[in-house]
């Protein structure tokens, strides 16, 4: 079976730039989205958060809260905001190719 990899620009996204289909995601796509939101290079710490949030969404069907991110992603809240200054949960979700988190926390 052959897999066609779509170019990032051709992927379907919502009005805020979140991928419509999480299965379209791959690491190259993540890097493109990161640059788009102002993060030039994804460090190992960024990846830890992005992979955690994506994995949690794929297993539970919803993105974790900032509280859970801080407690369980092994990246503490202060560092989350240093890595993603414009909003850790929102940006990690967008880079991780999952929908925008719906909760208020």
């Amino acid at each position, binding site marked *: 079976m052959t897999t066609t990899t779509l170019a990032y620009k051709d992927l379907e996204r919502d009005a805020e730039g979140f991928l419509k289909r999480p299965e379209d995601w791959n690491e190259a796509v993540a890097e493109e989205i990161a640059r788009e939101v102002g993060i030039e290079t994804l460090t190992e710490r960024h990846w830890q958060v992005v992979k955690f949030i994506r994995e949690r969404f794929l297993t539970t069907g919803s993105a974790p*809260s*900032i*509280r*859970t991110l*801080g407690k369980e992603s092994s990246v*503490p*809240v*202060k560092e989350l*905001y240093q890595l993603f*200054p*414009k*909003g*850790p*949960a*929102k940006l990690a979700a967008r880079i991780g190719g999952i929908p925008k988190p719906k*909760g*208020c*926390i």
Partner: protein
Amino acid sequence: MSATILAPEELLREEQKPETIKKVSIIISKGSLEGIYPGLILANGARMEGIEADVFFTFFGLDAITRKKMDKVRVATVGNPALGLPALLGIIPGMPAFVTRQMAKKMEALDIPPIPEFIQLIADSGAKLYACKASVDMFDLKPEDFVDTLDGILTVGEFYQKAGGGQIIFT
């Protein structure tokens, strides 16, 4: 020359989409559970959207950042018609604690942290926490009575200076 009349959809396009706010100053003035949480949720939510946030605690709102009181904040069961609790039941000893426990369970299920943890989360998010000087003086409180994450005790004038260029929300 006649003026151009725009169709409704064109008018909409002409209008500039308002920008998202960049900075917010939230005042928390009440000391009940339902008086404190909305402000904390707004502050945390602002940071999560990348909005700069200051929280100013005044009057009984100070309980939220006072070490000895922050974990004893309760729901008001008297004079709170929205609870749907008959007025006479509200005065039964233990009722505020009971209602507060019920609410705490609900909030935990929604991943809303208890007040001390929430204050820490908001401080870690980069929001600034301030106490109102008039209230601090009135309740004879000292800087050491507050959480370590407090950024300062401000007069009203100083609060307004810090709030410059942003929106103010009073709760």
